[in-house]
């Protein structure tokens, strides 16, 4: 229930903020909207920078090997309007990421929603693909 409330608050916040999603480069040229990803792993690095914030996650594959994924979000101004701060994601946090796979680069993706395992809070990532989770 707390999660639902958080989502509702986030959604209302987004509507109020209006143009929170940030368009920088061509989403379509870099990412394949037909290839959704859903990853769970541990944050290894956060680059809170323009024009896109990136974070990196160690994901354990089915065979036990670990792959480091790089994930793109919006810019800090857009993320702050969506409720983030530079300390929302920290190295060591366990997260689930819903997003889209890059067309050409393996283990790169665009994050649309990030869920923190510790709180269950779903955070919209000011993605250039759109604000809402896949339906």
């Amino acid at each position, binding site marked *: 229930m707390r999660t639902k409330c958080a989502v509702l608050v986030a959604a209302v916040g987004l*509507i*109020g*903020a*209006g*143009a929170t*999603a*940030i*368009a*920088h*480069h*061509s*989403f*379509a*040229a*870099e990412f*394949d*909207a*037909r290839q*959704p990803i859903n990853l769970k792993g541990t944050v290894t690095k956060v*680059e809170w*920078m*323009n*024009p*896109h914030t*990136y974070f990196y996650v160690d994901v354990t594959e089915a065979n036990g090997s670990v792959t480091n994924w790089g994930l*793109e979000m919006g*810019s*800090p*101004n857009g993320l*702050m*309007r969506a409720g983030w701060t530079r300390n929302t994601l920290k190295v060591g946090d366990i997260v689930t990421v819903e997003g889209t796979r890059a067309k050409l*680069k393996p283990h790169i993706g665009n994050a*649309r929603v990030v869920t923190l395992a510790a709180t269950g809070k779903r955070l919209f990532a000011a993605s*250039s*693909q*759109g*604000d*809402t*989770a*896949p*339906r």
Partner: protein
Amino acid sequence: MQQRALVVGVMIAALLAAFTGVGVRWSSAQAPAGQRADGAGGRNIAGSAEPTPRLADGTPNLGRVAGEKGVWNVPYITNMAERIVEADGTTLIERRQSQGRGARGAGAPLGGGEGTTGGGRGGAKSEPQVPFQPWAAAVYDYNSANESKYDPEGYCLPPGGPRMMATPYPMEIIQLPEQKRIFMVFEGATHIWREIYMDGRPHPSGDDLNPTYLGHSVGRWDGDTLVVDVVGFNEQTWIDYYGHPHTDLLHVVEKFARPTKQQLRYEATLDDPGAYTKPFSVRWTIPWNATGELTEYICQENNKYLQELTDDFGKPIFGRKQ
């Protein structure tokens, strides 16, 4: 006019790309759900409309009221062709909305796909209301085929012309009537501002008119409408995300009106005899965000997209050469 010289190269590259299948996706795959509204109107306008704020001399105030916050929430408009005022006085978006479908509603949008998420774009042939010259149609087809891979905004270059009012970051208008000038301050694109001279000066002529990204803007009030005349654009920008090209002959006349406190009505007439066979007008509404303030956005900081961008032959454009 240097764009014309580029066309041959662009067309060859497009043909090669088509031949090899690189970057070409004419398929009509459905884009996923979850698109945000396209700024076609209204969703931020809640409650009863308040009257137009005015300065002491009665001129409409296009910015904040003293003591209050507020910014214009510039919408994300990806394809100007959908906003062209056609012979019947309406735009494609307006007709779609009047039929009960949103900007991202059912039915194939003009150009054949979703702006930011791909899904196939139809190019010039799908936009009969755009008066392309043949070379401009070829450039547009190329930008459609590679899904705006080489968008100047992706390089952290600024938008030019009406795209300033279509790049989705907050914007403020600051009027300085005693100084006879108006500033428009844009958080996004590249943290840009433009100055509009209100002192009655003409545009510079000849070599004194130096081509720039945002052009040279002179303004006047026509009743309650601010009319801004802009010339002197360089050719480093696109008219929109979809990649409608323009030349340095582009002449834009913009009209800004604030019929209520919550709405900025924007209309721009584009006359570019270098790229189009006749002028055309586009329009949309920009909603007021009464609690917003500008923040910092320095696009150039860590632009991995630019650093890693490759050309149609797979070679780095800006990164370390192999």
